[in-house]
Structures are given as structure tokens and as C-alpha cells.
């Protein structure tokens, strides 16, 4: 996953990416503790649940990676905040408790607001709260209120108080933003489940990191079945193997 350029001759694009990568740091991979401030933006379609799902998966991944002692059994019991504006709520639905990851079910505070301005207010209040585990916002389209200034404001609040923050942008253009990591995500065909090959399996996403401060851009096929795993090539069988290895490693 943190593979350095292979021995075969690299293409020009790869060369550029590598040089950029060396300047900016190593490739992104799940399970990294990441920077102190997490301020991400995830672009997704409003007709699918991939955006919010990836935000939750990233939040959980960061939480696992930053746990002070992975063996200590002290679950994080802080609440987390999910802010939706009205358009995002009608377009892509309301959070459904039985479908949330099990460790997050009892801790959700949901804020349904009418306008993007109210959503920005609620997000900022959430980011200034020291008792929240993380904050997720869901805003539809490119509202006028959500400009570079607003984005920077949220980023500063997240940085100052250390609350991780992901903003899901539904059906939006890639406008100016101060987010440290910007993703574009779409659903990918899911992995075949073990028993019924005809049924949909563990969720997977085609994710593109198109702008990040510390990582070179890249594409991943992510699978979030309890634990986030990634495959660079974007081929499902490889991901299947990675997943199996991760699960085997986790179980041993």
C-alpha cells in the first residue's frame, strides 16, 4: 500500500506523481494516524449513500488508528454530530439508526437545518465543542454561503479544537475550499459475500483523492466492512485478497 515506484520503468504521469509525492509525503493509506487536524471534503452523488458512508468509515479508521493503546478496551463513548441541510435530507435521506455502524449507533446527535447558513452555524458550534468525537456535515449543491471563507473558518475551528470534521458535498462542483483532503467518491460493485453470490456484499467505493496537503493524489478501491481496506489498482479480486488478509491478521 505504501509501495514505492516499482522496478519497471515508470510512466511520465507516475513520475510526476512520485515527485509530487516525495515533496508532499507518503501515499495515503487507511490505518494511518494522519495529521493532527482532520478536515476533509467528500464529493458524492445525492442518489447514493456513498458520501456519508465514506465519511463514517474515515472517521472510524482515524479513531482506530489514533487509539493510544490498541489493546486497551476503553471504547470512545463521546457523542458525534451529523448536520444535514434540508436539500441533502430530502435528496439522500435521514440517518437510520439500525443501519449505522454498531459503535456509533447510540452516540449520534442529528441536526436537521433548513438552510446552508444554518448548517454552517451548526457545524461551527459542533467543531467548537470539546466533547464531540467527530463532526459530519452534509450539504447539497454549491450554496453561496459555503465559500472559501466559510470553509477556512470551519477548518480553523477544527484545527483549534482538534475535532475531526468531514463535509459531504452532494451533487456539487469542485469549488474553492480549504479542506486538507478532498475526495470524490462513488459506489463500486461490492465484494461477493461468502454464502450468497447473488446478494450485494460488503460495501466498497471507488474513491479519488484529488487534493491533499500531505499526500499525493491517487485512486483507491476502498472497502469498509468493519475496517477500512484499500487497493490502489482498483481491481476487485485484489481487494478481496487484501480484505481476507486484513481479516486474518485482525483475527490472529
Amino acid at each position, binding site marked *: 500500500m505504501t509501495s514505492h515506484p516499482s522496478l519497471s520503468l515508470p510512466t511520465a504521469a507516475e513520475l510526476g506523481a512520485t515527485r509530487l509525492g516525495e515533496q508532499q509525503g507518503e501515499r495515503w493509506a487507511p490505518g494511518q494516524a494522519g495529521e493532527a487536524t482532520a478536515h476533509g471534503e467528500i464529493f458524492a452523488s445525492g442518489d*447514493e*449513500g456513498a458520501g456519508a458512508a465514506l465519511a463514517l468509515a474515515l472517521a472510524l479508521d482515524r479513531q482506530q488508528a489514533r487509539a493510544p493503546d490498541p489493546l486497551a478496551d476503553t471504547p470512545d463513548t463521546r457523542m458525534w454530530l451529523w448536520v444535514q441541510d434540508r436539500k441533502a435530507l430530502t435528496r439522500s*435521506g435521514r440517518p437510520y439508526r439500525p443501519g449505522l455502524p454498531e459503535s456509533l449507533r447510540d452516540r449520534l446527535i442529528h441536526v436537521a437545518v433548513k438552510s446552508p447558513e444554518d448548517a454552517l452555524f451548526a457545524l461551527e458550534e459542533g467543531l467548537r465543542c470539546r466533547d464531540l468525537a467527530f463532526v459530519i456535515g452534509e450539504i447539497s449543491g454549491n450554496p453561496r454561503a459555503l465559500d472559501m471563507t466559510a470553509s477556512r473558518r470551519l477548518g480553523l475551528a477544527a484545527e483549534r479544537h482538534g475535532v475531526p470534521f468531514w463535509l459531504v458535498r452532494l451533487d456539487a462542483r469542485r469549488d474553492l475550499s480549504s479542506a486538507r483532503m478532498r475526495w470524490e467518491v462513488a459506489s463500486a460493485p461490492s465484494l461477493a459475500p461468502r454464502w450468497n453470490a447473488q446478494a*450485494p456484499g460488503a460495501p466498497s467505493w471507488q474513491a479519488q483523492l484529488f487534493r491533499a496537503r500531505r499526500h499525493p493524489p491517487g485512486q483507491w478501491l476502498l472497502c469498509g466492512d468493519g475496517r477500512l481496506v484499500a487497493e490502489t489498482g482498483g481491481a476487485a479480486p485484489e481487494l478481496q485478497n487484501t480484505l481476507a488478509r486484513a481479516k486474518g491478521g485482525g483475527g490472529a
Partner: protein
Amino acid sequence: MLEGASSRRILGIWLRVLALDRWRLGEGLAEGEGADAHPLALIAETAHGPRIAAANAAGLTAGAQAGMMLADARTLCPGLAVAPSDPAGDLAFLEKLAGWALRWGPWSALDPPDGLLVDVTGVAHLFGGEAALLADARKAFARRRLATRMAIAPTAGAAWALAHHGPDGAILREGDDPAQRLVSLPVAALRLDGDVLTVLRRLGLKRLGDLDGVARDALVRRFRNRRSASANPLMRMDQLLGRVPEPLLPVLVTHAPLVQRRLLEPIRHLALLEQVVRDLSADMERVLEGRGEGARRLELGLWKVDGELVVRKVEMAAPSRATAHLAGLFARRIEDVDAGFGIEMVRLRAPWCEPLDLAQRDLEQAGEEGEARGTSLAACVDRLTVRLGAEAVRRPVPFASHMPERAQRWQEPLAPLKTSQCVSDYEIRPLKMLDKPEPISVIYETPDGLPRRFRWRGATHDVLRSEGPERIAPEWWRERGAVRLRDYYRIEDATGRRYWIYRSGVVGDGRGGVPAWFLQGLFG
């Protein structure tokens, strides 16, 4: 509940002849002295003429009884002297007595028309035991020439019953079973209305023990439409035994903290009003700090020059008294106040307070005012609620229902969760649900095959993989008969988007025509 009730000790005091005792005190007579030696009755004026409210010992022997018409009594005893009764004065006297009775316990309540209840939990040792406490109380009342009967019991109901109908000075100890000890008391010991007592007498239930002999179901049915406690013997019995709590109103009233500013010059500008509110919040913080409390609800009253009153209320998720927080909450609520010709007085009141211990001052300041450590969760929820409304900030909780949209409900974010049975793990549910399922047109193998292709929001999706059906029947105990069952399918289209769709009904179920399809949930 039983433990909590049994740990309490209530002293019940019954002033047997309160009205007559007051009359004697007013006349300066001892019992059986002067005018009291001859038959005398206290009368109350009614629509049908004077009626006897109370009669002294000589009057009772002469045949006068409470509740009799004076004319009837005069035929029995022509020499009956009368004096007006004074129920309002009796009540005022009783109220003073309740305050005086605080000498035996920290908390006392009126039990009109002629009783007092004092909470003596944990204070008996100051008098040398409960028997000594009763002796002390009896001596004190005798010195004031008031005839009393008293008892100590774990509940107010039992204390009342023993004081009125038990032996004088009875003590129901903590270990005693009240049901056993009180078995022989008459049903009148249950503090019931007269007509209910008549009903019980006609049913042949005379003692408390008789009530136990009857099946509870029968009594519940007999008194099913009696809501008030004084009309329902079962409710009274439960109160007496401490199975249900009985709220009592203490005579010591608690004053809601209140601060106000009368303004020299009526103010008309928001900036000035904000300053006043900030000053009031600081005053309120000082008052609350002195009491060791934090406010849960605050009311801001703005008196305008033209005689109008504007009230703004704020509720908090957790008790708080931080000036910055209180003022910040009101800052949003006073933006839309129309000052008119000016505001001349501003008052801040905290009608609902809860205990809040002193916290470390410097850390708290750094948290709330310095903003270096961020706000607390309660403060964050308050701010969100004040601007967005209580309906906007909520938390999902499970609810026992098969219907997916009913399986979760929403409640206040910081209210405690009710315990519930776990949802079974084999049910795979979507991450998000649409508030209203959206109709889709589906190509499927009739009558109940898997979906092959569907059209939603103007786009066509080919279904590559699907699982189902998961059949969820309507809740017949709640819904109308024509509601159709639902067959849910988890599906995945060619690009990997995963949805939760259902077919409403099956062909030929006799509840409508061709089944319709809906898309309800989006998987992550």
C-alpha cells in the same frame, strides 16, 4: 420504591377539635371553664340556614352533632349557645402551626382541614428516639392547649391512618409490615370521600383487611373511572403501603432566583439591551452560585414604556450559570424584540433550577470564556437548540416496531436512553432512509420474483445482484385492514449503488390492483 418509602419517617398530627380549641384560645378559657361548661356549638351559615360545624363536650352530650342543622339541635337542647365558626382563620392558624412544627423536622406540610405532616426522617435521635419525639411534641401541643393525636409511620398515608384511627402515639417501625399492622383499621382511615365510604360500606368492606381479601382485579374494575386518589380506595391503599409515591406540598416555599434592573432611561437599542442582559446574567450567576444551583429554564421579562410585556424563555440541556453562556443564549432570542417607545425594566428569573456544584474556576473560565478548550456538550446543544429549535437537534432511539420507518424515534439529545431489546443482527438495514418512500417503476418476474430493472429519479438502473424478499407484514393491531404487506429487496445496480426497495402487496391479495414498488433506503 419500597426501599425509598420505608426509609422515610413521617409524623402525622391530627388536631382533633381545632375549631373549638381556637375558640377557647380566643375567649381565654380552659376546657370546661366558663362558657365552655355549657352546651355550645360553632355554626356555619349555609343556603338552608345555620348548620353546626363543631360542638363542645357539653353540647355533644346534649345531642348536638357536627353537620346538624342548628334548628334541629335547638329542639333537642333549647339552651344551646352558638358562636360563628371561622374556617379561613382555622386554615391560617394551621399554616402557622405547620411552620412552628418545623421544630421536629426539616420539612412539614399542611393536611387540611385539621392535620399536619412533618418529615422526621433521620432526626429522631436528636430527641432521644421516636417515642421521646412524640412525647415532646405532645407536651408542646398540650402547652398550647391543643388537643392532638399523633403517629409516626413510613408513609404519609399510614401516619394519617394511625393518627386518626389508631392508638394515640402509635409508631410503625421500619421493619414492620404496614399491611399487617393496619389490618384492623376502618376503611375511613384511607382518607376517602364520603360517597366512596358509603359504597365500601354497602359492599361490606369495613376494615383495611377486608380490602386485601377481595381480588384486586374486582376492585380495579369497580373503581375504574375514579381518577382522583381520594375517590379510589386502591390508590389510597397503595399510597398507604408506599407502593406509589404521594406528592406533598411543603409549607416552605422555594423562591425562584430573580434579578432585575430598573432603567433610568428607557432603552431602544439592541446593543444597550444586550449589555443589560449581560449584567443580569452576571447577577444571576452570583445568585445561583450562592445557592449552589444552576438554571435549567430562564425567563427574561422586558417591560415596555407603553405598558406591554415581552417574555423570552430559554431552556438548557444541563444546569448552567456561566454568564457568557446565559447571555449568549439570550442574545439570539432578543434580536427580534420590538422596543417600541423603549424598555424601562428588565427582569431575569430562573423558575427551574437544579443543583450544580462549584467547579474549578480557572479551568471553567478557560473553557467557557477563553474558548481555548471549546464548549461543553450541554452548552453546544443549548446553542444549537436556541437558534434552530428543539425539533432540529435530536437523537435517534430504537422503538419496538416491525415497520422500518417506525423502528426509530427521535428524542432530545441529552435525555437518557430507555433500555430496549437489541435489534437482531441478521437484519441488514440501510444507512439512510428517505422520509417518504419514492415510487419507482420496476420490471420484475410477476407475481413475486426478483426485480430486474427499475427507473428512479429519471435514470434507469439494471439490477445485477439482489437479495430478498424479506417480508414485513403490516401491524394489524394498529393499521387499517386494507394496508398491504411489503416485500423488501436489497439490490445493487450495475455501478454498485446499493438500495433498499420494496413491493407493496402481491398480485391477488385482494387489497388493491397491481402492486406498486417503492425505494426507501440507501445503503452506504
